[in-house]
């Protein structure tokens, strides 16, 4: 009963996270479009106070690069949140170890790893720009996602073993 309530609350939280990340991705995309084609002042507040105007004035190509990394990461995070929602949809407390759940968890670990790798590349790119005298206050969160990917991968392996044990248990008469 208690677990059911926790699962429902978590499901609602992840829906909110997913919608929030979709809005962030959309806002960043629109902001990039507005800055490039309508008004360059759009770079001043791309999303939630992220100021990239100095970078835009310094070099438009670098601005496009940083904005593209932000959009990619935000989209990947949104997809990861969607995978968590999908996990909640497929998860059955009476029959927890099944192939579908195990495959969604494995997929989640792959996406978390991709986010970590993209974030590392973005971080290095931003550091290279900052060496030219600019300040970029963006937290890419690469290490957290790599750590997260490792943990989810271990959980996915445990789940796979759980699926095997459960199917063996079902075929024990």
């Amino acid at each position, binding site marked *: 009963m208690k677990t059911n309530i926790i699962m429902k609350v978590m499901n609602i939280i992840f829906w909110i996270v997913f919608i929030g990340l979709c809005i962030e991705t959309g806002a960043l995309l629109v902001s990039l479009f507005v800055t490039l084609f309508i008004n360059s002042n759009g770079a001043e507040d791309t999303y939630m106070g992220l100021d990239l105007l100095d970078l835009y004035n310094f070099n438009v190509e670098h601005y496009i690069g940083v904005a593209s990394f932000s959009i990619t990461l935000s989209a990947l995070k949104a997809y990861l949140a969607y995978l968590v929602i999908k996990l909640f949809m497929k998860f059955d407390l009476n029959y927890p170890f099944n192939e579908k759940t195990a495959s969604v968890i494995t997929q989640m670990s792959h996406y978390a790893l991709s986010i970590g790798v993209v974030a590392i590349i973005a971080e290095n790119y931003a550091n290279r720009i900052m060496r030219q005298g600019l300040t970029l206050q963006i937290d890419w969160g690469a290490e957290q996602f790599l750590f997260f990917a490792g943990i989810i991968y271990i959980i996915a392996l445990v789940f796979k073993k759980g699926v095997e044990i459960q199917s*063996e248990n079902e*075929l*024990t*008469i």
Partner: protein
Amino acid sequence: MAKRKMSLNELSEKVGLTLSNLSILKTGKAKAVRFSTLEAICEALECQPGDILEFVE
């Protein structure tokens, strides 16, 4: 079962197993058999485990 002239339904009632589980046993899809199940089947069919189990290479 044929020697004892017993149907699958009858055996299922005597042993206390569902028809689907008995069918899993009969078709060889089962991965393991509990001693209690084996004992119940042997008791119902009045036979030894060796009469119902066979090693096939």
